[in-house]
């Protein structure tokens, strides 16, 4: 198929960006979206120009690095997939596709479609862990039985890949879904209970400091989340936060 691409080009963090138009042809439906971008970049390089910068690594939906805002949706029109797993069969010959970076104050653009998401790391550093040393002297793993149901819920929350689509999809650029996924995972497990109160307070505090917006329960995040992280996690975190704030 032949496609028209309108892509955000921005030289650097403080440069002014603009949408530029490109044409690509002979795109196969079996290509991934990023393979289509490879074709475009090869074409640009052959002309001696600068290719479009974008983040990616695993190309199988797990590292959370790819991050394109495609036709007004983070990771594009398909559900439950990242940009790298989106396939061109979701588009038709002659389509025009708009491609932009994640937009949020807390995610400044580095170049073109690549943004800085280190704010997410700092939120985890503020408390997204169980404070146990890695000595290997902890108790036997089976000494802590965990009901399968809780283990499964904790696992579901833990599958967040930290991509930031939730922030990009939110009109307030809120990071609640991301933060609540980690808070939920640890609060559902006995290992995480001891520090539960400090954890939720510290992580939310850091989230606010990074400049993410408030949550107004629009639910856009959960719709766009490639890993199906549930809004229940936000509700769980709100409860944790409330009880932690009262007891502090």
């Amino acid at each position, binding site marked *: 198929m032949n496609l028209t691409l309108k892509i955000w080009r921005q030289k650097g963090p403080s440069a002014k960006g603009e949408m530029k138009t490109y044409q690509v042809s002979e795109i196969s439906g079996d290509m991934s979206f990023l393979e289509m971008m490879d074709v475009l970049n090869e074409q640009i390089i052959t002309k001696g120009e600068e290719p479009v910068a974008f983040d990616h690594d695993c190309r199988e939906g797990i590292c959370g690095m790819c991050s394109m805002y495609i036709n007004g949706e983070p990771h594009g029109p398909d559900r439950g997939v990242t940009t790298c797993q989106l396939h061109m069969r979701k588009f038709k010959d002659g389509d025009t596709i708009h491609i932009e970076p994640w937009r949020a104050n807390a995610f400044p653009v580095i170049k073109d479609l690549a943004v800085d998401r280190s704010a997410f790391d700092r939120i985890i550093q503020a408390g997204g862990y*169980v404070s146990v040393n890695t000595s290997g002297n902890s108790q036997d793993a089976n000494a802590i039985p965990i009901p399968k149901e809780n283990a499964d819920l904790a696992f579901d929350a833990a599958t967040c890949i930290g991509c930031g689509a939730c922030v990009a999809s939110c009109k307030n650029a809120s990071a609640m879904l991301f933060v609540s996924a980690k808070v939920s995972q640890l609060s559902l497990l006995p290992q995480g209970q001891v520090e539960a109160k400090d954890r939720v307070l510290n992580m939310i505090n850091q989230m606010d400091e990074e400049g993410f917006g408030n949550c107004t329960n629009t639910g856009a995040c959960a719709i766009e989340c490639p890993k199906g992280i549930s809004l229940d996690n936000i509700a769980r975190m709100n409860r944790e936060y409330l009880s932690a704030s009262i007891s502090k």
Partner: protein
Amino acid sequence: MSTLDSKIPHGPIADKWTDYKNHIDVVNPANKRLIDVIVVGSGLAGASASASLAEMGYNVKTFCFQDSPRRAHSIAAQGGINAAKNYQNDGDSTFRLFYDTVKGGDYRAREANVYRLAEVSASIIDQCVAQGVPFAREYGGLLDNRSFGGVLVSRTFYAKGQTGQQLLLGAYSAMSRQINKGKVTMLNRHEMLDLVLVDGKARGIIARNLVTGELERHGAHAVVLASGGYGNVFYLSTNAMGSNVTAAWRAHRRGAYFANPCYTQIHPTCIPRSGDYQSKLTLMSESLRNDGRIWVPKHLKDVEAIRSGKMKPTQLKEEDRDYYLERRYPAFGNLVPRDVASRAAKERCDAGYGVNKTGEAVYLDFSAAIMRYGKEKAHTSHIHNATDAQIRELGEKVIEAKYGNLFQMYEKITDDNPYKTPMMIYPAVHYTMGGLWVDYNLMTTIPGCYATGESNFSEHGANRLGASALMQGLADGYFVLPYTIGDYLASDIRTGKISTDSKEFEEAESEVRNRLEALINNKGTKSVDHFHKRLGKVMWDKAGMARNAQGLQEAMDEIRQIREEFYKDVFVPGSVNEFNPELEKATRVADFLELGELFAKDALDRNESCGGHFREESQTEEGEALRDDVNYAFVSAWEWTGDPRTSNLHKEELKFENIELKQRSYK
């Protein structure tokens, strides 16, 4: 020629590690504060080492080229992690895990290292559970296990098809805790481009800040490389796009020997390639072979009918299918080790039985497992007289609970529903057993430079068993390196801060700068990918699943040729001092182009078949790999001489004192 000293402690194998730990030098806690350690890599090996070293009191600086340490390639590991816990009461033990790993590696690994790995494996699971890693559990609340290839016990712990993700996030969170305490400084989007030696010791690195393009000098008392594997020398592999050999290769060029570069694991179950634009291959976890049966049609006429779309695989009768692994290897069946399964798939496809258009695909079929689970489920839910359709539906749910994310991944890529029709799979490059040579302490031949995880060569011999890489990465980082590095650093407590103003740092930095500028100023006509793809094709055709002397000789010449053309004609847009992904690729591919030639040379030199290294000249009548223990029971450690072709070979003899050397058999 120097002799390689592997520094294996004396004494019975079961006591070596404990005795060693009791007798090494330790650094007192106050002095640890005076010591800096650089860790290159934030995967399982790097993140676990960073967290542990920081907890012990060292000042740690950790580097990764991704935008967050959580995105290291370990995140993509799917199936599981081994540990000799014997929770299933199926007779597992440290010795059995040790034995399986040495045998699986086709007797080309160092016994002492493998034994230590098996010994610490159980602690890994305890550690991860304490961190809150949500492993799969049974209804009773205890941990669940599954089986992997090449073993007869169930010792693999897992978290659906996302085990690597969960383990890495565990290590990442342990490291984040230390970042919060100021004990680890994390440098994201930084790439190590050279190792700096002062007075013969590793004392720092030159790194490029990938956002600004600036070159930075970082000094330390020791440098740990945990930079992953080099499977991308084949261009197409299951590795992440950025996985590369540069950190290891630069250390090699500075004096670290590179061991067994040709030992590559070609994984049997990956999604076949679909076209020339293909940028990577996707793994379908080995855990699927617990429940999936591999087959091709028995008759070529059926192959034709399937390829042309006249027949669906589900329509082919049982007796017309060739479950070739079950036929050839009745004892292990679909769970033979990876190298064996891959070669068997290639054998069938080469004979014309491949089931897709390219002729390079076999089936991985879940229908028997779906029906089996469905019946079980119907039985336990007291549904009597369930129809086939009902049973199938129940069975599909069980399969979904076990492998849901893998099935979804498959469907998104191929547009086929694997619950209803068998998956198509084909072998692909997956893992590199070769890597920097290290001694028992995990130190390379450069004093103070360590290598851990996939970047070293040590535990898996010529073939790695499934679920053992995650085990090795975490064992190295949590439990081995933190001890062994202390033994070396104990003599460094009075050294003081390593200055980066020395002429050694000066020279290394300017060499890197010249290299980068030369690439940018080259202004050729072809993209970096153009050369990478050509390299990959030569590697796959001539140094891939089957190798012979003539092909390897040609590969060496062709790779050299591609390398020369690369330096004449590559075009790298942009400049050095900016965010420039093409320049990143260019430095990586430049190093792959040197490694590739050494790889082929190593494969040529090893005129035997072992594990993943299959020399056509050395096979049994039935086409199985034939080892030559008289002439090749050694590790090949190559020393850089300025040209991959003239690299010097050093041999570490492998002694088997606890396991009898035998031809592997999985029949």
